[in-house]
């Protein structure tokens, strides 16, 4: 799909609570449990390794603290650009509002559950345990 070059840009929309797999995953889990590191770097490593030379790595995250074993050599030598940050939401909420008014997006399509606010705690449990094909929960007041 990329002619063997790798994607022009890679987005890590998983972040620091990435599930750990394999030997490196075990290493991350142990270090997190021992409070020697805070953030799982599983996906961060993958996006850096996969991205094509001179490409962009975009990290909506979230990351909160220290990440371990980040492939700095790949990042530097492949001339990658990292773009990240908490969303500048005061600006981008208005971008979204215009796209909605123009009929370009229908963001409610991701909502799987609508619950009254009184059932909010139950909502967290459903979301956390991935029950009932949950995807996005809204609460109604």
């Amino acid at each position: 799909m990329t002619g063997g070059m790798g994607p022009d840009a890679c987005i890590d929309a998983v972040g620091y609570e990435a599930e750990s797999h394999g030997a490196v995953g075990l290493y991350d889990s142990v270090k997190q449990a021992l409070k020697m590191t805070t953030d799982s770097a599983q996906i961060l490593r993958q996006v850096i390794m996969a991205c094509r030379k001179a490409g962009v790595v975009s990290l909506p995250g979230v990351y909160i603290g220290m990440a371990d074993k980040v492939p700095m050599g790949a990042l530097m030598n492949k001339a990658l650009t990292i773009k990240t940050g908490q969303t500048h939401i005061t600006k981008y909420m208005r971008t979204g509002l215009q796209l909605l008014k123009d009929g370009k997006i229908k963001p409610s399509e991701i909502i799987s559950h609508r619950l009254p606010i009184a059932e909010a705690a139950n909502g967290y449990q459903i979301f956390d345990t991935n029950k009932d094909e949950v995807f996005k929960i809204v609460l109604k007041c």
Partner: protein
Amino acid sequence: MKALCWYGTRDVRVEEVPEPKILASDDIIIKTSTTAICGSDLHLYHGTVPMMEKGDILGHEFMGTVVEKGPDVKDLQAGDRVIIPFAISCGRCFFCKREYYSCCDNTNHKSYYSKKMNGDATAGIFGYSHLMGGYAGGQAEYVRVPFANVGPAKVTSGLDDDDLAMLTDAFPTGYMAAENCNIQPGDTVAVWGCGPIGQFAIRSAYLLGAHEVIAIAIPSPAV
């Protein structure tokens, strides 16, 4: 009023708590109509975010109707329907003037701890620990919204609550992630994670001109 309060790891409860009051002259109070649970709320639920206190009200994706306003609030009136950005911005600091709103210098009052951790503090966020300002969150029947001349956007009745609530964090976060990719015609963008942010990043990458988007996720029934 009813509010979702945090008590510890996997311990959140809906409780009766006092309603918020106007504290600054540019505050508004809104009556919440719709609020969402964000994936990042699960980080609080899992107890991995520092500086949480028992009884903290969670929630940063919310919208509703203005019920009260301070004397210095200009363009909003009681009865206006508004959507509220998840991060609070002053609108006049170095960063806000350059539209780096999440880097606002004036809305994270307990920023000492943030400065220790990160070298500097970022903007306050509703319902997201005392590290992020200790603001009461939006998973409640009423919410105090500070700096109301900056963040809130008035919306008309023709638009649906469920669409609008997704604009307070989830959609724009996916959109900014895609915009940050500086997409050129013919580009291929790969997205790891197909939760709400990933889905919106995929959609936005196409809107911004990507030729192809590759989605990468561990299969789950919902995806």
